[in-house]
């Protein structure tokens, strides 16, 4: 069966520090991968999605970036964190195609101080 992992689970970082969040999927090949941010009371905002290695689409301009170095690995990064980057970051995967369900990881809670 398929499993999606995210780490770390919780992260506290100072403003201006770098960020690297990792997401990996097991049990499937060539998944679509997604990064969402969830801010309090604002639902889920799609940040990036990827349909293959090295293929990244950015949905919202910001100081975050994403990379997909391997088929089942998706990384969210920042060179310098802002206070507004605080939130709950969720990774998701799907097998591809608009009908396909997205399955979510457990999330990473990021607090920027």
């Amino acid at each position, binding site marked *: 069966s398929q499993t999606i992992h995210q780490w770390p689970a919780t992260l506290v970082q100072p403003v201006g520090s770098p960020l690297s969040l990792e997401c990996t999927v097991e049990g499937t090949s060539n998944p*679509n991968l997604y990064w*969402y941010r969830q801010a309090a*009371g*604002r*639902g*889920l905002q*799609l940040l990036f*999605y990827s*349909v293959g290695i090295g293929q990244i689409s950015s*949905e919202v301009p910001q100081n975050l970036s994403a990379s997909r170095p391997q088929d089942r690995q998706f990384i969210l990064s920042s060179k310098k964190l802002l206070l507004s980057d605080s939130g709950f970051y*969720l990774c*998701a995967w*799907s097998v*591809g*195609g*608009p*009908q*396909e*369900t*997205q*399955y*979510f*990881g*457990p*999330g990473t*809670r990021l607090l920027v101080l």
Partner: protein
Amino acid sequence: AQSVTQPDIHITVSEGASLELRCNYSYGATPYLFWYVQSPGQGLQLLLKYFSGDTLVQGIKGFEAEFKRSQSSFNLRKPSVHWSDAAEYFCAVGARPNTDKLIFGTGTRLQVFP
């Protein structure tokens, strides 16, 4: 562009009472529709989805939802709520035909009193 509205930010019900969570979407054609549930500090779990066919969709945990094209709605229902149903519920729409993206509503937080 498609959008999703969940008009109720917070709903409180008593255990055993019936539940209906509202979801309205905006899209020019028939969309793909989803309901997800999120327990505190957790990821999202799919409750049910609608793609085509029967407009009444059954999901996990005793939930169902009905797609009403005339009202652009996809409301989630449960006849008898359990305390463990307390969570945040998200409606989402996927645009057809060539996108893998979902648009989420802002969520409805459900509180259940014993």
